[in-house]
């Protein structure tokens, strides 16, 4: 049951990325060239909606479907890692036109390219796993 719910949420997320074209290499280039407000509007309104939702969840003490308190933990600040990793991620995002979720969308949409993207992302993750203890965080 949990599997199905998660799958459906992923399906919804993917469909929004597809029909808003946020998965598209072109929309990403367009964003970084400041040619259109589309992607900025999309990101800002997603953040705003999420922030409002988190506020409401907290304010009214809304519990999860299984009756548990909803805990939201911010990711710990690791200044060097957040910045250096972020820069590397950003370069990858712009040249592949895909961040982590669109990688999976492209596996389903253009598998010939999507599988190269996924293989790259997995290899990058392996490299991180190998060097993790040797790089500054």
């Amino acid at each position, binding site marked *: 049951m949990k599997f199905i719910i998660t799958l459906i949420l992923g399906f919804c997320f993917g469909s929004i990325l597809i029909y808003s074209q946020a998965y598209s290499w072109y929309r990403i280039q367009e964003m970084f060239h400041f040619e259109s407000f589309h992607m900025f509007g999309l990101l800002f309104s997603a953040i705003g909606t999420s922030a409002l939702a988190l506020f409401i969840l907290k304010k009214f003490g809304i519990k999860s479907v299984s009756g548990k308190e909803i805990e939201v933990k911010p990711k710990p600040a690791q200044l060097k890692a957040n910045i250096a990793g972020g820069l590397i*991620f*950003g370069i990858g995002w712009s*040249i592949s036109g895909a961040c982590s979720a669109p990688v999976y*969308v492209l596996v389903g949409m253009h598998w010939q390219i999507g599988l190269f993207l996924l293989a790259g992302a997995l290899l990058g993750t392996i490299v991180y796993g190998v060097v993790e203890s040797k790089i500054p965080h």
Partner: protein
Amino acid sequence: MKEPLAWYIAGPLIGLIVPALLILREKQFGISSSYRYILSFIPTKISYFNYHREQDQWQLHFAIGLVLSALAATQLFGFSDAITIDKLSPNKYEIVAQSIYDVKNALQFFIGGILVGFGARYANGCTAGHCIMGVSQFALSSILATIAFFVGGLIGSLLIVPAIY
């Protein structure tokens, strides 16, 4: 390519995934830990992949939903992304507009994928976990990472991509 679904509809819908995941699954929105989860099945001595992977299992299920959404859009609902974005400059991009997802560009996507995979783990999150989930919590780590994503993106898009084409 047709006009995209308007940002003021798509953005809030993406934002609503956050409370939906919290209420239905008690999970914080994110996707890039799915890569670590997948790799944890390969027997290895790398300690990073020997971890309590159950915590990330749901992200693989989430990822399967993403793949299925693309299959449904293209195979069932006739979605096509033959794109000509005429506003996009420099004009060079129009030349490649029909063929960016061609296999001849595989190396570009492979290298981009490596940087995405490495960077997401190093930064401890991606556009989902940091930009959307983290910034909406006003987390310092996520605000810094988001700024870095955009600086990196500008470097890639304005300097590296034009050098490829």
